[in-house]
């Protein structure tokens, strides 16, 4: 009886993805192993893939006392844009949702839904971007999934990442923890991501010299927490923009929020973009903007820490929590007036994350 040779290393043999690549058979294994596993190095060399990744709890315990767990789906169109791509976004989004809870991100999962007809070359670029961003953020992609759907059943590629991280003992960040007198900080200018995506779609026939701010914020947030351990809460200002974060915080903490329009950093080109299209940068999505609320006595240290980080050079204190008008966000206009900043009323903006 002949001993058969084991399979050669798996390689995708087509230029585009077909439904066969999602069928659970050998074409799927080729795709998964060649494009994703090889890029992410999810498993030790020579070790087979299991249905689940395994992490030592003892090692996690050494870093803190709580596990943070989060998920986000990314459906951005276009897949690639100035400043990033869906892969970078998918890593940053989940890393940031861990980091804003005070967690050190440890491991990510990555589930992709691919529309048949997708170019394998594009998938490879995006997988490489995922791997690069994960390295930059210091996390590992440890498990994943691949589905292929018929043409028209999804828009090219959706990525869902989940993440686990460890929250340092003693930290307790929460959207309900803001107190009157606290200072509201942000690390950088608003709207870069939203404007970059809308411009990249081409439908508005507008060219804008704006790149997405998409970045992993865990390093920045770590520095902030070191400098201001009393930090009340941190949120990344993604969909719904700064306005959504401020309103959620006002409502959950039962405080008023008063911000100064003139203190909020916005790039001139983003402002021009918004002016031209009648948009408000407070509602544009961001992928590298963190909003932090710190007690007043730690505000200076916190701001200094943000500004000392490459992702926080334009950081600013933009307002304070107040006892007045709990649940409401009020903005002082440069002209001396005030306005209410409400939640976005679902304008059908292009998909940006």
């Amino acid at each position, binding site marked *: 009886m002949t001993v058969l040779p084991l399979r050669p290393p798996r390689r995708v043999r087509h230029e585009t993805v077909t439904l066969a690549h999602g069928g659970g058979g050998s074409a799927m294994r080729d795709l998964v192993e060649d494009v994703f596993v090889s890029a992410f190095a999810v498993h030790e060399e020579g070790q087979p893939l299991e249905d689940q990744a395994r992490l030592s709890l003892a090692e996690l315990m050494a870093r803190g006392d709580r596990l943070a767990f989060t998920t986000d789906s990314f459906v951005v169109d276009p897949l690639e844009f100035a400043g990033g791509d869906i892969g970078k976004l998918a890593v940053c989004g989940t890393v940031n949702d861990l980091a804003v809870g005070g967690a050190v991100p440890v491991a990510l999962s990555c589930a992709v839904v691919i529309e048949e007809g997708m170019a394998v070359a594009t998938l490879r670029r995006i997988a490489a971007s995922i791997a690069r961003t994960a390295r930059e953020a210091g996390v590992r992609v440890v498990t994943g999934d691949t589905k292929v759907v018929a043409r028209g059943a999804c828009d090219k590629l959706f990525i869902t990442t989940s993440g686990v991280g460890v929250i340092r003992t003693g930290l307790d960040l929460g959207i309900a923890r803001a107190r009157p007198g606290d200072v509201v900080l942000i690390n950088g200018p608003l709207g870069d991501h939203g404007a970059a995506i809308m411009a990249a779609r081409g439908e508005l*026939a507008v060219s804008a010299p704006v790149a997405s701010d998409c970045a992993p914020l865990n390093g920045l947030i770590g520095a902030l927490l070191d400098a201001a351990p009393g930090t009340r809460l941190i949120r990344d200002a993604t969909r719904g923009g700064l306005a959504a974060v401020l309103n959620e915080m006002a409502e959950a903490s039962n405080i008023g929020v008063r911000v100064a329009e003139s203190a909020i950093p916005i790039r001139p080109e983003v402002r021009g973009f918004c002016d031209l299209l009648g948009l408000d940068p407070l509602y544009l999505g961001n992928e590298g903007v963190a909003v932090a609320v710190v007690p007043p006595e730690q505000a200076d240290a916190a701001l200094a820490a943000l500004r000392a980080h490459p992702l926080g050079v334009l950081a600013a204190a933009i307002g304070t929590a107040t006892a007045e008008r709990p649940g409401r966000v009020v903005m002082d206009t440069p*002209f*001396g*007036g*005030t306005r209410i900043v*409400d939640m976005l*009323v679902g304008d*059908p903006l292009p998909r940006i994350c």
Partner: protein
Amino acid sequence: MTTPFHDRDTGQRLLARIGEKLHALGATERAPIRLMEVCGGHTHAIFRHGLAGVMPPGMEFLHGPGCPVCVLPMGRIDDCVAIAEDPRVILATFGDAMRVPGSRKSLLQAKADGADIRMVYSPLDALTLARRNPDREVVFFGLGFETTMPSTALTVLRAEREGIANFSLFCNHITITPTIKAVLDSPGMAVDGFIGPGHVSMVIGLRPYRFIAERYDRPLVVAGFEPLDVLQSVWMLLDQIGRGVALIENQYGRIVPEDGNPQAQAAIAEVFETRAFFEWRGLGSIDESGVAIRDRYARFDAERRFAVRSPTVADPDGCRCGDVLKGGIKPWQCGLFGGACTPETPVGALMVSSEGACAAHHQYGGLRKGAA
């Protein structure tokens, strides 16, 4: 080009002067001078910059009917939904129009239900859609006052020049002056003067407003949209009132020529003709207040191509948009305000666009007057 008109110090001084004028006029919080901004752009600017809050006591802004999205009647939205639901059609529209409620549904809901509806920035982009989708009928939902009319007229002319057969315009353009007349004619009218629409005027010039001064003895100042523009216009109106005159003045000379824009007027005249009447939300039917596409361009007229019916649809129960539009009541005096009618679930059109008085109040001004 805009920053000097934002200068805070100049503004403070202007506000002081405005206060002096109001004082001189004997205006008080209970018996204020009432100035109506006709244009939704001004409504937006007033809330956006918090100008109402910085006004000295004795001055009250009335938010007029100048948001073309807000005054669109339900029947026209229903027509538009019907056109959009034709599987051959790609309906292109400005984003503002998407959430306006029709009697069955809004365009946003029609889109969710499967209609092919695209948001565009410009009618030119709708024409591009038509070029790129030769097998589809692209209908542009054209609406707006005279500011926007030239752009759709020029787009129709461009379509004709290029021989683009699958493009048409669902024309809902309206003219500004009949609106102002409707306000002036409404019982209990209490407007002391008008902040005139800056961008409409850059097209039509100042002449069309003369009847306001001559027949109704009210001043109008065509104003720009920056904070200082608005304050200066308020000052100019108070100055006229103090002097006991009613003139049509132009604060926005950097943009608005005395006679408007001749090329724009020519394009309008070439493509459009006045309708005998047009239905307005809250205001009913107003004679000669809308335009339609001339026979010459009938093939670009979606109204003819899709046999639109435009039934008159009554405004929903309890909706007081008409009274708000005419300055008769403040938004929060409508029983639906903030309850059944919110920006997420607008009952009336004034709750849709950020240029609508109710939406502006809800979004920028807080739920109740006292909070503004």
